[in-house]
C-alpha cells in the first residue's frame, strides 16, 4: 500500500455519510409510523437502522481521520518520511503498519470490534423485524398465523453464539435477504442491499485472514453502497410507482 489513499478515504467517508442519512431517513419515517400504530416489529426495524446509522457515522469519522493522516504523513508521496506507528505509538521511519490490520486497525482494535458487534446487533434486529412483521397467508390469500418465527430467531441466536462476528453478520443478513426476496413478486432493494452487506462481511473475513488492506477497503466500501441501493430503490419507486 505505497500509494496515496486520501481521495479514496474521502470518497468512502462521503459514501458513509450519505448511507447514514438513508439509514436516518428509515429511522425517521418508520419511527413516525411506529408512534402511530405501535407495532413492536417496527421498533426492531427502527432500532436496527439506528444502530446501522451509528456504525456508518463511526466509519465516516474513521475515514475522516484516515484522510487527515494521509494528508499529514503522505506515506505514498514521501515513502521514507516519518510516519506514525500505531503499534509502538510513536513516530518512525519505513513503511507504516496499515490501519486496516495494525493494532488500531479494523478487526483488531477493541473500538472496531465494538462497531462490528454493533453492526451484528443491528442485523439481528432487522432480521427480527422481517420475521415478526410478516404473516403467512393461505392459498386464498387469507392471512393465517406463522409459527416459524421462533425457529428463525433461535437459528439467528445460534449463529451469533457459535461463529465470529463477521460470519454471523453474513449469515443473519443472508437469512434476512432470503426472507425478503421470498415474496416472488420482484426483488425489493433491501434484498440486494442485505446481500451486499453480507458480501462485505465475507470480504472483511478474507481481508483479516490475508492481512489485505485493499480487500478491507473493498469490504468497507460495499457497506454504504448497500444502503445507497435501498435509497435508490425507494427513490425509483417514488418516480415510477
Amino acid at each position, binding site marked *: 500500500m505505497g500509494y496515496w489513499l486520501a481521495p479514496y478515504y474521502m470518497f468512502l467517508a462521503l459514501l458513509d455519510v450519505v448511507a447514514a442519512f438513508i439509514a436516518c431517513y428509515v429511522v425517521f419515517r418508520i419511527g413516525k409510523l411506529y408512534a402511530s*400504530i405501535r407495532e413492536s416489529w417496527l421498533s426492531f426495524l427502527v432500532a436496527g437502522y439506528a444502530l446501522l446509522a451509528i456504525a456508518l457515522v463511526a466509519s465516516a469519522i474513521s475515514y475522516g481521520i484516515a484522510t487527515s493522516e494521509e494528508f499529514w504523513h503522505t506515506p505514498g508521496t514521501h515513502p521514507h518520511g516519518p510516519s506514525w506507528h500505531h503499534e509502538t505509538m510513536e513516530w518512525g521511519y519505513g513503511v507504516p503498519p496499515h490501519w486496516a490490520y495494525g493494532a488500531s486497525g479494523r478487526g483488531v482494535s477493541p473500538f472496531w470490534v465494538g462497531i462490528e458487534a454493533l453492526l451484528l446487533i443491528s442485523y439481528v434486529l432487522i432480521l427480527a423485524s422481517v420475521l415478526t412483521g*410478516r404473516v403467512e*397467508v393461505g392459498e386464498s390469500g387469507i392471512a393465517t398465523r406463522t409459527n416459524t418465527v421462533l425457529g428463525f430467531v433461535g437459528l439467528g441466536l445460534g449463529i451469533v453464539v457459535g461463529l465470529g462476528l463477521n460470519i454471523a453478520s453474513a449469515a443473519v443478513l443472508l437469512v434476512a435477504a432470503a426472507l425478503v426476496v*421470498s*415474496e416472488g413478486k420482484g426483488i425489493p432493494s433491501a434484498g440486494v442491499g442485505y446481500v451486499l452487506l453480507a458480501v462485505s462481511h465475507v470480504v472483511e473475513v478474507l481481508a483479516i485472514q490475508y492481512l489485505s488492506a485493499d480487500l478491507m477497503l473493498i469490504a468497507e466500501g460495499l457497506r454504504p453502497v448497500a444502503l445507497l441501493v435501498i435509497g435508490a430503490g425507494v427513490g425509483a419507486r417514488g418516480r415510477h410507482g
Partner: protein
Amino acid sequence: MGRKKYRSQAGIIYDVLRTVMEYGEVSMTHIMYGANLPFDRTKEIVKSLVSRGLLEDVRVNGKVMYRLTGRGYEALKELEKAKRLLEELGFKF
C-alpha cells in the same frame, strides 16, 4: 408443495384502516372482506386497533360498527407515506 406467501402486518393494518375509511362506518364482516382476513383474525386486529385508539366502535340500529378516529386517520396517512419504503424493505402490502 407450493411456495408460501406472506403479507406484512403493516399491510394488513393498512387494508383494515383503508376499508373503514372508504365506507365510513363498517361492520366486522365488511372489514373481513375488505382486508381479506379470516373472521377470528379480523376480530383480533380490530380489537387491537380499538384499544390503540385507531378505531372506535359505535352502535348503529343495534349493530356494532367501526369507524376511524383522528389518530386512525393520522396512522393511515403515515402508512401511506411509509408504504413505498416498507415495500422496498421487503414488507409486502
